[in-house]
């Protein structure tokens, strides 16, 4: 039994190898892209909506609402990044009910990759919003001596983000694996159902935390700007 999907090599050609994580990620990507394309190629802006369009609209609108509530800003620029985090993680986790499927999120590599994306996205959005100098000045707040702590905080929260998701998804997979050896019938199904719930919650938490990090970097700037105005 393999716990880490990274180690499950499907295809290898020299240094180029395709492991289970990458394969199932592709699978999820194709699923999402194809599904979106199928639904959105015939959108209607009036009259009765198709069920799928309605579903996607509810989803997108819900994400927009969450972003707006957390950031108190226009959700437009953040939607693709944060929304994709949520959708990708949620779908990866939900598909765990498909037999033979291993969620890519149960690999620390994937969660670390997502966390690194957030780690990079925070300064990118910050600089895009307020300029590089203003953004860098934040690290000197409230004094110059706080600079190392600010940098450590930035790194540690990225690590926490990665480990939190990994741990939750990994634990789910491991628990199911262990239970299968003890009580092979019925009980694993309950655990798997619980796993679906956990998976959705983790997706939500991951996206919201990413948003909070991005927003906090911008909010500090906005508060300074407001003080300047007064």
């Amino acid at each position: 039994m393999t716990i880490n999907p990274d180690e499950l090599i499907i295809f290898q050609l020299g240094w180029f190898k395709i492991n289970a994580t990458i394969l199932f990620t592709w699978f999820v990507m194709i699923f999402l892209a194809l599904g979106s394309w199928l639904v959105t190629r015939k959108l209607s802006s009036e009259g009765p909506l198709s069920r799928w369009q309605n579903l996607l609209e509810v989803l997108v609108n819900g994400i927009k609402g969450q972003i707006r509530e957390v950031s108190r800003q226009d959700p437009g620029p953040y939607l693709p990044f944060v929304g994709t985090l949520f959708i990708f993680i949620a779908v990866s986790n939900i598909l765990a009910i498909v037999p033979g499927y291993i969620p890519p999120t149960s690999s620390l590599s994937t969660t670390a990759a997502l966390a690194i994306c957030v780690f990079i996205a925070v300064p990118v959005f910050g600089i895009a919003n307020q300029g590089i100098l203003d953004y860098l000045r934040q690290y000197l707040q409230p004094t110059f001596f706080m600079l190392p702590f600010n940098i450590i905080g930035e790194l540690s929260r990225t690590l926490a983000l990665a480990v939190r998701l990994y741990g939750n998804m990994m634990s789910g997979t491991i628990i199911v694996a262990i239970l299968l050896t003890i009580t092979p019938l019925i009980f694993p199904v309950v655990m798997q159902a619980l796993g679906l719930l956990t998976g959705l919650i983790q997706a939500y938490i991951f996206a919201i935390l990413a948003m909070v990090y991005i927003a906090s970097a911008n909010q500090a700037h906005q508060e300074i700007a407001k003080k300047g105005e007064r």
Partner: protein
Amino acid sequence: MIIDWYTIIFQIINFLVIVFLLRRFLYGPIIKAMDDREQKIVEREETAVSSKEKAEQEAEEYRRKSDELEEQQEEILDKAAQEAEEEKKELLDKARSEVEETRKRWVEALEREKESFVAELRRRIGAQACSIARRCLEDLADARLEELIWKLFLQKLAKLPAGEAEELQKALQAEDGKAELVSAFKTPDGQIEELKKSLTEALPGLEEEPAVKAKTDQSLVCGIELQAGGYRVAWNIDSYLEDLEDELLRDLEQAKPADPGEEVPGSDE
């Protein structure tokens, strides 16, 4: 090794790709569709608001028009009522005057009828009285009434006052002695002679015997008349009948009903 850097880099690339794909196929179109719908809803609301305003304006217009119409109607009705009142008054006046005229005509006709009735009554009473008197005289005095009247007439002629006799004489002379005797009865020739004789006796100034011509007139009822030019000597029962007529008229006047249109003022006190 839990963390495989190769996989991490691969996953970062995968994630960026999926961000791009979803942005291309999910967020873009969905948000565009929602915005379009919102836009259309706003447009529809605006249209609805404008058409509502238009409808309200039109309703206001119609309300105003109907108010005007009502006002006009009221005016017309008032005018009609006024005209009807005037017409009524006019008609009443007309009717009243017509009634008044009819009443006047009726009163006049009544008066005329009364007069003609009285005249007729007079004539009949005269005729009746004459015939009664004639019969009484015939039965009682064994003499004809005509003769008595004749004698009375001759007596009157003989006792003619001097002034009147003179006037009669003048009238006779102006007519060359021609005179006319009008009587209700036939006058025998002997009586004419008698009249001529008494005339010459009564009028001593007469140069020649007058020529008397006899004529019968039933309207005299019971009497004799001698006409000469404009002068006349007569005896008839007219004077009696006139007394009778006066009395009758007085009686009739008293019996006349009070005029309803001419109330005596203060009569109801």
